[in-house]
């Protein structure tokens, strides 16, 4: 590890400031609703006693095939051994941005140089939509955290680390990790020095991923081919994108290890096919590495003749960029209906001002969880008109719901809501239902309500019960494996295997 210098201090300063400001805005975590799915899955693993191949906590009582790679949920289930699930969700949502800042700092500092690492950290901290996506798309975020570390391990010829990290990425997200794999393959084609290392890394990690891959391939037919958003819905942060494109060309011209970030950026374009909406946020990682390289080289090139004050001028320029980029973030946003150039607040300024929607975990939703828990047995099923809130209820109470999130996998059959023990309706739904059918509340007994939801007990002859499937991998083994992988990383790093 190189000694810290002033560029490191600047980069770490950005990370510390953004993390402290995030801590100040702790009420925004977990951001949005995606974490509720992961929280309910972790709770499901905890109830079942390990990794299962069938969701019993959603679309109950029949459930659906569980295809989501389990690493994040195993980590969350482990944390849940010591902390409440809501706290686990908060931590996971909070931690992903500082982690990606640190991992990209580590990779660029070790493989390129300190100045580049500083500019990369600066550029990745600009777009608030990347900050938000890191807090929101938790499994993808974890892959983005692992990606620079995989690149570092490959460049340093650390086979054990690269296999462990790549396997962790594969077990984290169903598609994002393959983008890393694709980047490595194209890199191997262009850089023959790394060919053997990359082939070994991919061969061993995909071999380790084989069990889950077979499970996915067997059940591939259950996945939908839906695309989310349109390619024309974009949010282009002009500063990182401008320097990023210069860096892209420059990396192609420089060749060798410069190829890898360029290949990663090109591989990420695949996201546009399925998730155009997310592309413009996730791309910040690739574009910031490229942008950092170009900014650093442009500055070096301009100052190369300033032999007397070169270092000082360079540092002053870095500080000016640091201030400027944290005040102005010109953005070009488009929708199919139009476009707009505007100046958005960069991440640090947004966190300072605090113009961010608070978390959806509120006293009201927690009250709803309490009502559900006190009116049901562990194997009872509830129906709620908003399945997202349903996932939150499952994660807190452990009760299964009749609908679910993560719509990429659909169940074969859905059970009618009348078979649920509890029926939870939002007030708008209830008013509409009563208008259409005045007898709607027959067989329903009021048990409680919150500001937006009313909870009823259903008195019907048939009530469905949740059934817990057998685990395919006990959680204790999963924890041991996770622990061993960290030990492997430390040993590989310390003892230069």
């Amino acid at each position: 590890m190189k000694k810290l210098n002033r560029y490191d201090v600047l980069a770490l300063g950005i990370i510390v400031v953004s993390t402290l400001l995030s801590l100040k805005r702790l009420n925004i975590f977990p951001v949005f609703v995606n974490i509720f799915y992961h929280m309910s899955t972790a709770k499901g693993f905890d109830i079942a006693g390990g990794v299962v191949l069938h969701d019993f906590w959603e679309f109950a009582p029949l459930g659906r095939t569980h295809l989501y790679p389990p690493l994040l949920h195993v980590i969350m289930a482990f944390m849940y051994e010591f902390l409440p699930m809501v706290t686990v969700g908060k931590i996971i949502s909070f931690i992903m941005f500082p982690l990606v800042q640190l991992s990209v700092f580590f990779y660029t500092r070790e493989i390129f140089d300190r100045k580049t690492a500083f500019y990369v950290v600066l550029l990745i901290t600009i777009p608030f939509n990347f900050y938000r996506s890191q807090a929101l798309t938790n499994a993808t975020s974890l892959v983005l955290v692992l990606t620079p570390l995989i690149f570092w391990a490959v460049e340093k010829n650390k086979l054990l680390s690269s296999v462990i990290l790549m396997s962790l990425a594969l077990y984290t997200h169903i598609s994002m990790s393959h983008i890393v794999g694709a980047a490595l393959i194209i890199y191997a084609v262009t850089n023959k020095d790394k060919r053997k290392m990359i082939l070994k890394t991919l061969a061993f990690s995909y071999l380790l991923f084989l069990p889950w891959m077979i499970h996915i391939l067997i059940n591939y037919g259950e996945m939908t081919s839906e695309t989310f958003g349109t390619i024309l819905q974009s949010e282009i942060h002009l500063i990182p994108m401008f320097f990023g494109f210069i860096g892209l060309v420059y990396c192609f011209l420089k060749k060798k290890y410069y190829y890898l970030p360029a290949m990663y950026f090109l591989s990420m374009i695949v996201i546009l096919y399925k998730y155009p909406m997310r592309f413009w946020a996730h791309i910040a990682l690739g574009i910031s590495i490229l942008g950092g390289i170009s900014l650093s080289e442009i500055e070096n090139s301009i100052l190369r003749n300033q032999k007397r004050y070169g270092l000082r001028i360079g540092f002053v320029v870095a500080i000016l960029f640091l201030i400027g980029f944290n005040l102005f973030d010109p953005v070009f946003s488009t929708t199919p209906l139009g476009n707009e150039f505007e100046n958005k607040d960069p991440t640090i300024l947004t966190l300072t001002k605090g113009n961010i929607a608070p978390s959806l975990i509120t006293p009201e939703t927690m009250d709803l969880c309490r009502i559900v828990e006190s009116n049901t047995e562990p194997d009872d099923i509830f129906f709620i008109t908003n399945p997202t809130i349903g996932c939150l209820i499952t994660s807190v109470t452990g009760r299964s719901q009749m609908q679910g999130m993560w719509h990429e996998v659909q169940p074969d059959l859905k059970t009618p809501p009348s078979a649920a023990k509890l029926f939870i309706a939002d007030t708008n739904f209830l008013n509409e239902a009563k208008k259409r059918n005045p007898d709607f509340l027959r067989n329903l007994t009021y048990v409680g309500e919150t500001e937006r939801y009313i909870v009823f007990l259903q008195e019907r002859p048939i009530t469905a019960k949740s059934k817990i499937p057998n685990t395919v991998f006990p959680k204790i083994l999963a924890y041991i494996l996770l622990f061993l992988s960290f030990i492997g990383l430390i040993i590989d790093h310390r003892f230069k295997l």
Partner: protein
Amino acid sequence: MEREDILKEMGIKEPQKEDIESILENENVSYLVGGKKISKRKLSLAVIAGTLIFVLLISTFYFLTNSPEREYRDKVRTFKKMIQEKNLEGKDVSNVVELSRKAEIAYRNEDYNLALELIKRAVEELRRL
């Protein structure tokens, strides 16, 4: 600038001999002492090509998402601003009023091309006054 000055600048007082090269390389300052050369040609090419790709991307998205409806709203904004800024006392604005009224009707009828055409003419008329 001498190597010793650079090291002093970096706060490294007594580096080992064998460390000097790697420190200079890692710090990316070797270009200042005539070490690693930056390829100015490559960097210039990257700046030109990168800028071109950037401009191409932005303009593609701009033209793909630029609709007459949005342009109409922009023109209306300009039109209103001009009315506020111009001194129209004693001037015949009937034609301008008529054009803007027709443009609004066309906009309400979702004929954005016609609305845009009419508001453009209204802005032109206003400019002439």
